[in-house]
């Protein structure tokens, strides 16, 4: 079913950061019902023919032309960098300034809907956490892990935008660990033959498949939907159970040892794991996703075994 805008044509959606694995997955799904325009500073390949691509950094002036040229009905903002190796300033600049720019353009050009992909990591793993964090929980992810502070700032910024521009429907999605045929940290961890674990810790974890995240984005584009939503997939299981299912042979190490090893590896550029991220395999950081299920009618398609099968396949080759 093709979505028609008020003006009687196909709705036009801008996807920022379309060149990533997630961006591509979103684009492939949305282009059937929407006119899709992609923005990315990377070269974009393997895209359906009817998608218009603008290769430009979102902080540049030329982005504005995209909004000038056409009437945009919605923006899906995925252009958020998660690269622990990039310089902190550049990382912060790109994420915050880029987001701010997109939001300003949306306000100026009366875009009706903005969907932002944040992450459940903004809550941060902590021993004092409720087993399931609701959308109102404090964003504590930054207390130990500095690199996530720009994501928190970004999430907060979107929240203020939400209040400053009530005429625009802002949707913030906070999915749990996204895995599947992508190349992000959780997927890479699960692909390790001998993943290190922390001796004596085995937290419950939630996973979600990329395609289910895409579904939630699709749902978020429904007119009338606004607000912050946690997104999770199948019911949680212990980390050891997942590694078992995958047939991995984990290497449990005492935490101080693992920490110092990881730190050395990081300094020597042998690994790209930031040390504070170890908390994710130590403490719980799970979300209550009842709101997205009741208000957006979201349902996950991929159960745990399907998710794990997909992880095994590895990322799509570029």
């Amino acid at each position: 079913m093709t979505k028609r805008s008020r003006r009687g044509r196909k709705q036009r959606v801008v996807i920022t950061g379309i060149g990533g694995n997630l961006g591509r997955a979103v684009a492939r799904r949305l282009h059937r019902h929407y006119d899709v325009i992609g923005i990315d500073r990377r070269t974009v390949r393997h895209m359906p023919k009817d998608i218009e691509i603008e290769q430009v950094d979102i902080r540049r002036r030329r982005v504005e032309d995209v909004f000038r040229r056409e009437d945009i009905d919605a923006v899906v903002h995925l252009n958020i960098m998660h690269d622990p190796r990039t310089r902190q300033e550049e990382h912060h600049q790109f994420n915050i300034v880029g987001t701010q720019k997109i939001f300003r353009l949306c306000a100026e050009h009366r875009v009706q809907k903005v969907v932002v992909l944040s992450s459940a990591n903004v809550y941060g793993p902590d021993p004092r956490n409720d087993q399931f964090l609701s959308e109102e929980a404090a964003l504590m992810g930054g207390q130990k892990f500095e690199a996530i502070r720009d994501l928190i700032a970004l999430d907060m910024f979107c929240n203020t935008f939400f209040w400053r521009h009530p005429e625009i429907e802002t949707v913030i999605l906070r999915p749990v660990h996204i895995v599947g045929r992508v190349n992000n940290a959780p997927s890479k961890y699960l692909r390790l033959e001998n993943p290190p674990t922390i001796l004596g810790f085995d937290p419950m974890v939630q996973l979600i498949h990329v395609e289910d995240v895409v579904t939630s984005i699709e749902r978020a584009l429904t007119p009338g939907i606004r607000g912050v939503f946690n997104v999770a997939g199948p019911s949680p299981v212990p980390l050891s159970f997942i590694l078992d299912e995958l047939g991995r042979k984990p290497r449990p190490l005492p935490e101080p040892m693992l920490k110092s090893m990881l730190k050395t590896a990081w300094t020597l550029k042998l690994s790209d794991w930031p040390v504070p991220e170890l908390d994710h395999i130590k403490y719980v950081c799970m979300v209550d996703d009842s709101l997205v299920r009741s208000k957006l009618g979201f349902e996950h398609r991929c159960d745990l075994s399907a998710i794990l099968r997909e992880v095994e396949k590895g990322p799509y080759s570029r």
Partner: protein
Amino acid sequence: MLDKLRARIDDALIAPVRPEVWKRIQAMDAGQNEFGYDPFGFNPESLKYIIPLAVSLYRHYFRVDTYNIESIPDRGRVLLVSNHTGQVPLDGMMIATGALVEKKPPRMARSMMERWVPSIPFISTIFARCGQVVGTRENARILLDREGCILVFPEGARGVNKTYDRAYELERFGYGFMRLALETDTPIVPVGVVGAEEQMPSLYDVKPLAKLLGMPAFPITPTWPLLGPLGAMPLPVKYRIYFGEPMQFEGDSDDEDRVIGVQVEKVREAIRGLLQRGLEEREGVFF
């Protein structure tokens, strides 16, 4: 070969438990998902790591007698509210063991642990697998909404650490449990534990020393610290656990303390009644 060894260890572990009881525990429905875990990480199968110790204590050391355990409903949300005594809080373990091995079908009485417990290696995992939950209000609410059974001690440390001259007197109750019960419309089953007071009769609580050591109390008992670490062993007293009839309360969970207090007092009264009955019925401390 390793698997075989593992299977044999597992068999040895559950040996103290009667097979039919263990079968009932395995088949228990405590809200697990298709993989056998509930959202808090509880897995009935993992109870085998703790249940041999618990059952040995239950059957042979404290020789626990339970009365009227059927008053715990077979299913549906319920709060077990008990007195808390004995310096070393083993009463929770005994109540939970009772609900598992004596009751048919078994119920898993979940208790709430301190918030720093998940940061201790091994303990965090074992406790979670055996049904313990981090003590936040939200967690209690989630558990009750999932029709769980929670064991609470509204006296808290005040009850455990009191000296023997106040044995079987109930300390001040916290109000949180009542607000929770009203909010989630949960019946309360009062529980009275008789016997635990005598396991370590505290003669005097050396408060400055406790403060220095960062402990909630430093009790002086007839054997501790006189006999050294051996003196810290609880005496082999006989436990008697009395379960009262379920009580249903109605009202606004956000009411003033004054109003809530009246209802808390009713539960306290019920527990006091159970203790009274237990003290009258028992003929000795050790048998």
